[in-house]
């Protein structure tokens, strides 16, 4: 498709018919600190530039789901930007463990993935993700996209 589908899908998009409001996460309303979980070092570097240099946000990067689980309590991010296809522990498992292992409310999660078939997106949202950002993403607008999904004014 030439123009493509919108790269950012928020919770509301395409999921309005679902009525399980209980699983719906609440957008934090503010973003200062993002935890990025991504196994590809080049893409990690891009995300850091896009959110930090372009977007003015604090970014902590993790190279695996395991590392993210170890560090999330100390980092206390406002939102987690989570890759789906990762070796060993994939994004879905990381997401589920984040939710299960947290004593306080777990941080909201935005999946960042090339797997954005309507069905796949629906699955991420029904799991309780805040939103989905499609890869390839535009680093010049990534911070704005994250802010929008987090419900920032």
């Amino acid at each position, binding site marked *: 498709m030439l123009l493509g589908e919108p790269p950012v899908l928020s919770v509301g998009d395409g999921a309005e018919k679902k009525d399980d409001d209980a699983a719906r996460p609440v957008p934090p309303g503010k973003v200062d600190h993002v935890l990025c979980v991504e196994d590809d070092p080049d893409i990690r570097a*891009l995300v850091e530039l896009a959110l930090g240099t372009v977007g003015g946000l604090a970014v902590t990067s993790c190279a695996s789901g395991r590392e993210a689980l170890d560090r999330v309590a100390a980092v206390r991010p406002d939102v987690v930007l989570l890759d789906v296809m990762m070796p060993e522990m994939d994004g879905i498992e990381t997401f589920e463990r984040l939710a299960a292992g947290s004593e306080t409310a777990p941080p909201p999660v935005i999946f960042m993935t090339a797997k954005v078939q309507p069905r796949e997106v629906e699955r991420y949202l029904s799991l309780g993700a805040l939103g989905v950002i499609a890869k*390839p993403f535009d*680093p010049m607008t990534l911070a704005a996209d994250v802010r929008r999904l987090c419900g920032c004014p």
Partner: protein
Amino acid sequence: MAQGVQLEEIGTTGNPCRVLLVEDNVADARLTRELMAEAGDFEVRWASRLGEALESLRREPADIVLLDLLLPDGIGIEVIERLRAAAPETPIVVLSGLGEDDLALARRAVLRGAQDYLPKSAVDGNLLKRTLSTAIERARLENALRRREAQLEEAQALARMGDWWWRPGDREIGFSAQLFRLIGRDRDGFTATLRSVLRILEPAARTQLLRAIRDLRAGASSRELLLAVRPPEGAPRFFRVELRRQPETPDRPGGLYGVCQDVTEQRLVERMKDEFVSVVSHELRTPLTALLGALRLLRGLHGERLDEQARELLEVAARNGDRLKLLVDDLLDLERIENGGLHFEPQPVELGGFLRELLAQYDSYATEFGIELELELPAAELSCRTDPGRLAQAVGNLLANAVKFSPPGEKVRVCLSVADSRFRIAVTDRGPGVPPEFQPRLFEKFAQADSSDQRRGRGTGLGLAIVKAIVERLGGSCGFETGPGRGSTFHIELPRAA
């Protein structure tokens, strides 16, 4: 050989029939030769012993052998077998005595490969001639049938295919030799009753097969199944099984028949292809994400500081990176649509609003090419059940093409109409039209009229193939009208009640 001799022509002048007479009784031999001379144009050569006859056949073939079964160097069925071994396709007519034992032996000879028999003392010229003619014709048909059967078996082996038949009242199901081989069972060790067939199937396959048989007996004409069969050892193998019902007629009982094909390897290849596509998807997109992201950041953060030439080069890299991304997306889409991997979710769609929204999305793209988009809607609202995302992709591809091929300053018109039981979305451009030689391939993959299109149009050569694949999955059809210089109209038709 026999093939050249036609039934009605045997023994006529100018078309002599070469007969080898094998007879140890000199008087009988003379009598037979006299009869033949009367009956027509026969070239008779005579052998008094089996050894002599075999030697004669080696030297020169005969159209037919006329044979006494009681020879000094060979007696009975053995004679037939040795002759068959020496000349497997030459017809044999047995000359027999009139006694009960003689006739019984002659009949046995026919069962073992002779084409016919003649009681010696009851023979006249006409009977002899007619018997030889039918024997030659019968051998010709038998030989042809044997050759076809051998070819069929070879073809089945090559296709990993077998056939089966089940006549009413039969306990055993008929299996072709190749089918026994495919299921890894020996013809002698495996009796193909329904019960034993069910026993070698996986449990789910048993239910499937029984249901299909029940359906056919209830009047269905055919069924096709994919059954998992347990080989004597190793993992289950998968068979595509076709079942057909033979309609009953007064002279022929009904029954079931069909073919089976071992598709285990095909299934494996398909699964590997799916995995391959998924892996390629990820492996291509990851570096593309990094590449495109880096280029955009370079432009966004440092573009100001670059000189014009560097900025131009950056644009070249970014534009081609985008093209690569489109190509990967299109290839994966097409693969998924064609192989049913893409999920379609039909829902009620009001087509007027749908098109208005779609045109708005493409507005800036059209402006870039200096094209104006125009929408023509009928007075009434038209709604249909379809997948809006996929339909948008199909119509979007048509729009993008129309914009791309129209000269700047022109309009591209999108028209929604309804005819009979179908909705029609037509996209009309003012482009050069589709060259006639290119029209038949238009909806094929990578079909572009000439290679310069690619540079000009940012196309992947997959757009129309995707349109066709999507529209067919949506139960509709697509087509076009075009003329040189008149532009083209591409349309999508969707069933009204889908």
